[in-house]
């Protein structure tokens, strides 16, 4: 009997996992004992870190897109379709076009994050973002012609993709306006929901004095409740208001509705054992990347490492061996601190981050990794 592994989602987690399984289960795939199917609702794989550079005119959204068929091993059956429901008891799926498999033996959910700006009245009309292709392009139109006024970067939704990116954006904007001789005419304010500038206290303590040195104003305990696009103000749950000329927001994020409808977790995030990545509410279901509610950052490096763990565990289970691989919380992030300098952090569940001194070499390393990412997606790096 053929064991069928279905991976849902064509982002970093799903793509790396599918390629990992193709390599790891090569004999079983060749013998027809195992089938691996990747279901994605976009024929392209999208590398989201490119979007940070789009508003500054340095990259194009197309730089972050490649067809899945170029990246995924031929031994994986790629189906472009959208899964619309999961019955975890019967281990059955329904899909929009009927192209996805209707049954699975093992399911891996890597459906990722979606943006939910509509949860904040006025945000969609009054705010910009760099967390989507269209958002980063629209922001570029505003930012390239912005020469004076108040730029506000407001982190509204948490958890959100790439927790370092809001800090990167204000550090880059500060440097970019300075280099162009405009910084005296542009005020920059950064807002964050809790009492420091980043969820991780170590990164928050590292970033705050750098923001002060660079005259980046900070508002903490700042949770936007509504945006007035005409008056150009943000009103908060804490009862304050902030005027802006250009609002760059990190909108609320959600997973996809399918997850909640299947009873796997709230807001589209799957409740998992944070070490085995097994769903808590169903058998033979894993989640990885943003989809897995582990408390670690929603970052590509996390999805990448988790894919290796899920791949090993699935291979063990298929071969009838005890699954021993576990995820230790490993996370890597480069953090841009300007237009030509960056820091770097590495941490896990036990060891907190200690940001490296910013340097041009780390900035080059980040840009070099962004290019070599396509090897990661292919399962080669």
């Amino acid at each position, binding site marked *: 009997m053929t064991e069928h592994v279905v991976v849902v989602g064509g982002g970093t987690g799903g793509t790396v996992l599918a390629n990992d399984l193709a390599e790891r289960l090569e004999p079983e795939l060749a013998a027809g004992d195992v089938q691996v199917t990747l279901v994605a609702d976009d024929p392209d794989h999208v590398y989201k870190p490119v979007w940070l550079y789009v508003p500054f005119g340095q990259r194009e959204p197309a730089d972050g897109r490649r067809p899945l068929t170029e990246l995924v091993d031929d031994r994986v059956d790629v189906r472009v379709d959208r899964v619309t429901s999961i019955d975890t008891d019967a281990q059955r799926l329904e899909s929009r076009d009927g192209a996805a498999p209707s049954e699975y033996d093992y399911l891996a959910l890597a459906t990722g994050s979606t943006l939910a700006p509509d949860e904040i009245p006025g945000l969609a009309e009054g705010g910009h973002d760099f967390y989507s292709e269209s958002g980063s392009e629209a922001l570029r139109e505003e930012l390239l012609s912005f020469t004076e006024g108040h730029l506000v970067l407001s982190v509204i939704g948490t958890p959100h993709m790439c927790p370092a990116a809001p800090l990167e954006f204000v550090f880059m904007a500060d440097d970019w306006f300075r280099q162009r001789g405009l910084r005296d005419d542009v005020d920059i304010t950064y807002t964050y929901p809790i*009492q420091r500038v980043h969820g991780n206290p170590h990164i928050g303590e590292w970033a705050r004095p750098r923001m002060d040195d660079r005259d980046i104003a900070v508002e903490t305990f700042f949770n936007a409740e509504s945006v007035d696009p005409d008056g150009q103000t943000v009103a908060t*749950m*804490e009862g304050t208001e902030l005027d802006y000329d250009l609002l760059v927001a990190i909108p609320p994020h959600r997973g996809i509705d399918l997850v909640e409808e299947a009873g796997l977790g709230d807001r589209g995030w799957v409740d998992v054992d944070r070490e085995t990545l097994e769903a808590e509410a169903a058998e033979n279901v894993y989640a990885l990347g943003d989809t897995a509610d582990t408390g670690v950052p929603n970052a590509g490096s996390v999805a990448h490492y988790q894919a290796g763990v899920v791949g090993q565990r699935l291979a063990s289970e298929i071969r009838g061996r005890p699954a021993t691989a576990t995820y230790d919380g490993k996370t890597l992030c480069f953090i841009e601190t300007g237009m030509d300098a960056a820091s770097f952090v590495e941490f896990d569940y036990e060891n907190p981050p200690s940001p490296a001194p910013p340097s041009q070499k780390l900035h080059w390393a980040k840009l070099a990794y962004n290019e070599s990412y396509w090897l990661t997606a292919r399962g080669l790096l």
Partner: protein
Amino acid sequence: MTETDRDATATVDARGAACPGPLMDLIGKIRDVESGDVVRLLSDNEQSLTDVREWTEEAGNDLLDVEETDDHYEFYVEKA
């Protein structure tokens, strides 16, 4: 069952989450409920004792009660 148990409109179980997860989860839930509703937050993170108090004061919400059990804390926060 205590008085506050009965009054809780919604519960957020953030046990196992590292700082600042519980406070972030509480803020998210407070967004969803109506003024006067009570949210119960379960957290086993010590930092929540200061985080939750600081934020509720800042936001003008009312921290009605903090109960300590064997392995976690229960915070009752009324939305202003």
